[in-house]
């Protein structure tokens, strides 16, 4: 233990010096970086940009999987499983427990796949469309509210992340698109599959990072006919939402995230400071949300192996998972366990069915499997953390549209309003929920919906006062 206390001492010294340097450069750091000049018509499809003629039609899209694919999957899942024996006494501490995985595979093969037609019908309950944006076929769900008596209809761009899909939103979409006495607003929901995920085409060219992807998503909203819209998202959806809000604020009525975060350097300094003096920075009731910096770093190290390999070798890990429904299931479901509640690592079954049904978890896996999109989904990480993307300094481009942050206790990380304020200049709504984890829309749709409509009320109250 002697190492760690002395190391902490050196760390403290180092951070103190660094802090001093930053305070000195504060003025330079605190003003907004310029909005990067990104082309709104950059071509990301295969072949030469000069030969591309965009087809602006919007067509219905059939998400049906080829029957041969399902048959091949059944066959593959019927093969004898080659699984390692878990170490004695271990749950999910070393990753997905193989004993439990064989139960999952059994259910997938014997219970889920026999009713695949039912599941597909379920997935088709919302209207699916496709349109071509910047060379990429973009798939999206588009639900217009049917009953709007006395409510104002507001367009809402709903953005998923990794390893999720539009399937995460199936319980919240009916809440958003049906009138509710708690709100004057009802929403027209556009929920795309991110390019490279699900039924949306992947970019063929390098450097299609989150900033570039957010332009495609914003262009999608314009294509559908909405110049001004709300955004909601978690995971990459949160990052993409903040990018759209930073790059094209004129289109964004309000941005709501369930994973608000910033990597602004001043925020990091503040993070360190509140790690040492929590009472100064965080109210008592919310203190449980914030770990010490040491615990935070340890948690990040323990849980970011996937991010490290996806940010550096997506083609390796992606190819490894593509022929491999068993591997794909383990890799993705591990996240639905740990990111819902880190304590689930102690459990032999990872607590997967405590908050989710196996059917909805497998629906999501089937989307990755039938569209063969795991590799292209993982490339977002390498494009997102490379030099080209980081040089855009998106973390330093201020976000001015009204912003709402909903924090769910078991999610991966939390930031205080002060830390977020280094980038998000218009936080009008900030909440702490003592329950729930990373996949809030899927786990606690009612709570997320209630939080969202509170935010929306504030958005329009604010603009109402601005107009008078």
């Amino acid at each position: 233990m002697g190492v760690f206390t002395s190391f902490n001492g050196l760390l403290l010294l180092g951070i103190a010096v660094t802090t001093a340097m930053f305070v000195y450069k504060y003025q330079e750091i605190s003003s907004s970086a310029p909005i990067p000049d990104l082309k709104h018509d950059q071509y990301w499809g295969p072949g030469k940009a000069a030969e591309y003629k965009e087809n602006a039609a919007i067509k219905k899209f059939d998400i049906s999987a080829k029957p041969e694919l399902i048959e091949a999957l059944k066959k593959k899942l019927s093969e004898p499983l080659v699984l390692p024996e878990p170490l004695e006494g271990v749950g999910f501490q070393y990753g997905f427990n193989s004993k439990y995985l064989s139960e999952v595979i059994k259910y997938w093969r014997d219970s889920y796949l026999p009713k695949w037609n039912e599941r597909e019908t379920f997935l088709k309950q919302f209207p699916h469309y496709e349109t071509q944006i910047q060379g990429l076929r973009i798939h999206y769900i588009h639900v217009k509210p049917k009953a709007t008596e006395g409510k104002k209809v507001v367009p809402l761009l709903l953005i998923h992340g990794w390893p999720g899909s539009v399937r995460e939103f199936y319980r919240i979409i009916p809440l958003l698109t049906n009138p509710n006495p708690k709100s004057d607003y009802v929403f027209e929901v556009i929920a795309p599959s991110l390019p490279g995920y699900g039924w949306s085409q992947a970019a063929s060219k390098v450097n299609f990072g989150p900033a570039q992807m957010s332009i495609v998503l914003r262009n999608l909203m314009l294509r559908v006919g909405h110049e001004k819209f709300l955004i909601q998202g978690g995971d990459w959806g949160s990052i993409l939402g903040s990018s759209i809000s930073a790059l094209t604020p004129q289109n964004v009525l309000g941005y709501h995230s369930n994973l608000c975060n910033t990597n602004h350097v001043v925020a990091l300094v503040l993070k360190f400071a509140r790690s040492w003096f929590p009472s100064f920075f965080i109210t008592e009731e919310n203190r449980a949300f914030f770990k010490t910096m040491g615990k935070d770093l340890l948690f990040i190290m323990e849980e970011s192996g996937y991010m490290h390999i996806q940010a550096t070798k997506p083609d390796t890990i992606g190819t490894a998972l593509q022929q491999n429904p068993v591997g794909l299931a383990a890799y993705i479901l591990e996240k639905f366990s740990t990111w819902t509640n880190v304590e689930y690592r102690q459990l032999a079954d990872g607590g997967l069915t405590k908050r989710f049904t196996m059917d909805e978890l497998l629906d999501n896996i089937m989307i990755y499997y039938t569209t063969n999109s795991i590799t292209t989904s993982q490339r977002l990480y390498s494009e997102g953390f490379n030099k080209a993307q980081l040089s855009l300094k998106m973390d330093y481009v201020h976000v001015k549209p009204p912003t709402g942050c909903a924090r769910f206790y078991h999610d991966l990380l939390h930031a205080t309003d002060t830390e977020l304020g280094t980038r998000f200049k218009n936080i009008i709504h900030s909440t702490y929920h003592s329950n729930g984890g990373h996949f809030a829309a899927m786990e606690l749709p009612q709570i997320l919906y209630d939080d969202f409509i509170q935010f929306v009320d504030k958005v329009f109250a604010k603009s109402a006062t601005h107009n008078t």
Partner: protein
Amino acid sequence: MKGVIIIGLMAISSIWLYQRVNDLIKPLPKPELDTNTYWGPGNPTDYEAPKDVVPFKIAYDQTIIDDLRTQLNRTWRYAPPLEGIKFEYGFNSDALRHIVDYWRDYYLLKWRAHEEFLNSLPHYKTEIQGLNIHFIHAKPKPEAYKEKKVVPLLLLHGWPGSVREFYEFINLLVEVSDINDYVFEVIAPSLVGYGFSDAAAKPGFDVAQMAIVMRNLMLRLGYEKFLIQGGDWGSIIGSAISTLFPENVIGYHSNMCLLYTPLSMIKSYIASFMPERFLPQRFFAEHHFPLKDKFKLLLVESGYFHLQATKPDTIGIALQASPIALAAYILEKFQQTTGPGLNQEFNAMDKVYKLDALLDNIMIYYLTNSATSAGRFYAENMSRKFLGLQLDRVQTPVSMGCARFKFDLPPALDWALRDKFPNLIHSTYYNQAGHFAALEVPVMLYINFQEFAKKAIQIEEAKV
């Protein structure tokens, strides 16, 4: 008065600072560890390992090979590489397809020949601490014992390698030569959790535990004193054996001389400003510096390390469920280590290592289903218990030799190595080759090892 107080405060804080820094950099005492822990399944009372050493032949049923060919013959599911991209984003899926075709339609059709090649060295198994340990035991011809001094050598592989890395190297080591007076009896085990050896059934099997098992293996075979050679984990385990059991080690030779202690990192940082002062020749600087580039290289190449060190069972499941997954994941490392000039080319691995040798290696992982247990070793070595041992800070008097190949992971300076190995008797730099030196440049490694062995053995003989 004010002056006295200020001087007093400065003296106190200097002493405090000195003590804190000293805590971080001073050498630590050797830990005493239980050398008889049981690692097999369950908790048998009165466990006693059977002491017999049983010959072992690698022999797999044709049905297994046929099934593998079927698995490799499925409709290919992959994402095309981004335009203009080769291996910059990981293993290129087009290249992988060619390799899978070759594997299925050429390599596996002559599997029996490969199996025969693997059996060309004698294999054995023996049970140590509840684990069946596989090893190659290669001896020189009987005549050699009259001509030269025969010295036992423990040869340790790493990840994602296996005993297959050593076939050419072993054949050199057991051959009488004119270079010097020594020839070697080589004991090359599969590490616990790798290849044909059992895996530990309980958590906690880290480098120190592996060192104990390997040393017990040598004692089982009747060797109280032996040399050690290794790279990758083999190097780290060899260092641990030299640290925990110096009385058994004649000399320890490594082709991946890493040392990560606070002191070695401080020294590395200092030396980065004037490398010529700390290196025997100034053109060895590229092995160590610039630090920023080396750090970046480690960051870009260590995703697998991070994943296996935290979620070995997840990635293990994926690798064991698909031979293609296994191939992509392992071959990425062989592709990368072909060197900066070649590592974006599709035929680089065949040029540098020969594709058949690499497929032999992958077959070992595939046939023994050891991908998960192999990856778990990373997680066990990141445990608080193991990191708390801080073995890199424990000095050992064992004679040490270091061969640094240009494109391997950045090695430690002699200036740093001597803090742990005061008897660093052999230190060399090569302007070529990389991580898998035994496979890539076996003759070069052999000559280097012989030079080291001679010095180490002579020192040992002088002690008597």
